[in-house]
């Protein structure tokens, strides 16, 4: 029994302070991302969700250059980017893709400049990797408070407009007819998205930010068509995937004799990806047994909601 235990949890796992921080921050971020992500997937705005990560990374590298607090840079530029996307026309179906793309293109250009200037002034080494890939294990416990506060803010934004947002997401026309301010609700949602993506980019890195935003939510929405359930399922998947990923990354240090270990982002993404594929298999099986009328529930690929 003890052997099994030490095989699963390699020595020192529960005693390591980095693991404590990773588990706490990872859990908080996973929940925030899962809740916001369910709406992101339903609204078909995965591209915006991913792009805001790159936009806030540009803010992070800018903050690094002028010596500002990186959190302010990440979240600040993310919010500005979301506002510009909204202005160019993310709410219109045809303009959405382009609005996101233009903002993303400009932000990448800025990253190129900031990172180049940071590298030439010799302030920090490894800035490119740090900003673009990030790592949950390099986060310090001092960040926990900020992450929790910002996460709470994003969650509060979504909870505040939950009903109108849901209606505006499922059927914008009905929502407008019932007097829901669709534009305003969309803007509040975009701000919540920007804040949660910005904070997850700095806390766990840009790769995981997109993975935790889209993966658990997409898997949950395949498993259940009730939005309330999907929110809960997405949170569970997100948190479990994060914790399992942290555990595997910690253990991977003991695999083989080289003691190299693999990055935690790799493991978390792998777990999420497998979960998404498995959820598809479950859906396909229940679709075979379901009555034909129920088959049309899920919109076909490429259609916008």
């Amino acid at each position, binding site marked *: 029994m003890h052997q099994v235990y030490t095989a699963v949890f390699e020595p020192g796992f529960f005693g390591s302070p980095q693991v404590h921080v990773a588990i706490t921050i990872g859990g908080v971020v996973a929940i925030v991302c899962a809740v916001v992500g369910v709406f992101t997937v339903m609204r078909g705005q995965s591209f915006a969700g991913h792009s805001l990560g790159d936009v806030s990374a540009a803010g992070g590298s800018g903050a690094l250059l002028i010596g500002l607090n990186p959190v302010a840079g990440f979240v600040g530029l993310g919010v500005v980017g979301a506002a510009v996307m909204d202005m160019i026309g993310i709410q219109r179906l045809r303009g*959405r893709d382009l609005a996101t793309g233009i903002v993303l293109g400009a932000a990448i250009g800025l990253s190129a400049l900031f*990172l180049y200037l940071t590298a030439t002034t010799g302030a920090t080494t490894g800035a490119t990797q740090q900003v673009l890939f990030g790592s949950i294990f390099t986060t310090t416990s001092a960040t926990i408070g900020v992450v929790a506060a910002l996460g709470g803010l994003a969650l509060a934004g979504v909870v505040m407009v939950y009903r109108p947002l849901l209606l505006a997401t499922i059927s914008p026309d009905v929502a407008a007819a019932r007097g829901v301010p669709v534009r305003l609700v969309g803007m509040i949602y975009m701000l919540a998205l920007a804040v949660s993506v910005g904070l997850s980019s700095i806390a766990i890195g840009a*790769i995981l930010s997109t993975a935790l935003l889209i993966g658990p939510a997409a898997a949950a929405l395949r498993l259940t068509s009730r939005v309330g359930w999907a929110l809960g399922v997405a949170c569970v998947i997100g948190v479990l995937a994060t914790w399992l990923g942290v555990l595997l990354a910690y253990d991977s240090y003991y695999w083989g004799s080289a003691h190299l270990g*693999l990055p935690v982002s*790799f493991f978390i993404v792998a777990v*999420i990806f497998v979960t998404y594929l498995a959820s598809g298999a479950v859906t*396909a099986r229940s679709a075979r047994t379901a009555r034909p009328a129920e088959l049309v529930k899920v919109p076909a690929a490429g259609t916008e909601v």
Partner: protein
Amino acid sequence: MFTGFMMDAWITATIVAVVAGVVGYFVVLRGSAFPAHAIPKGAFAGAAAASLLGISTLVGLAVFSLLGAVGIGSLSRRGRNDVATALALVLMLALGAAFLSRTTEYEPEIYSLLFGEILGVSSSAILPVAGLAVVCIAAVAIIYRPLLLSSIVPDIAEARGIRSARIDMCFLLVVALATAVAVPVVGALLIFSLMIGPPAAARALTSRPVLAMVLAVVIALITVWAAIALSYQYNWPIGFFVGALGAVSYAIGRGWSAWQGSVTARQGV
């Protein structure tokens, strides 16, 4: 500015701009900006893997961008397009992070793969880049009619027996080829700016397909040439100028079409 290694830079940049303009026109028309961002960015992992195995970066890029295109195409058959793209992208990036953790790659090399290193293009690289570019343009020419039809009126294309899933896959493969052409020159992130900004501006100026495509190529050429000249002059990264000029050209295009619209409205047409 026009001697020796700079000549190589001008030639490859011109090739890249032509490919980006042609492919980018369809990216904008089809609303495929996300795959056009995801394939080059994910292909970056291929470059990391190639450096780990000690083989040519171009091979790694080409293999991973093709894998990415196939992954996105087949995942979107059984789920949402944008979700499939996002998940394929993070999977490739995670693999890239795993490869990078195994190499002792220097920071500047990672930077130049992401943001481009136009001056690092050697004259021996021109031939393979040109070859890939020709294949890419030829592929667009071959699927031109069905691609255009399915991009503008998908329903009619379906009715005429054009399978949209198949066209989708073909187009993703074209984007993958364009990626392999462009990444060594302008970097994994900036090829996206080049495929979005100039064609979006061209589309705002005209709605005629061939004219828009030619305009897209012209604007992409101006963007890249200006970016090289500015980057040579001021010693700032070329990526910054490509990104900024791409956004500026889009803004000018939008402004122009808005002005045109207000003129026609005043004339009462």
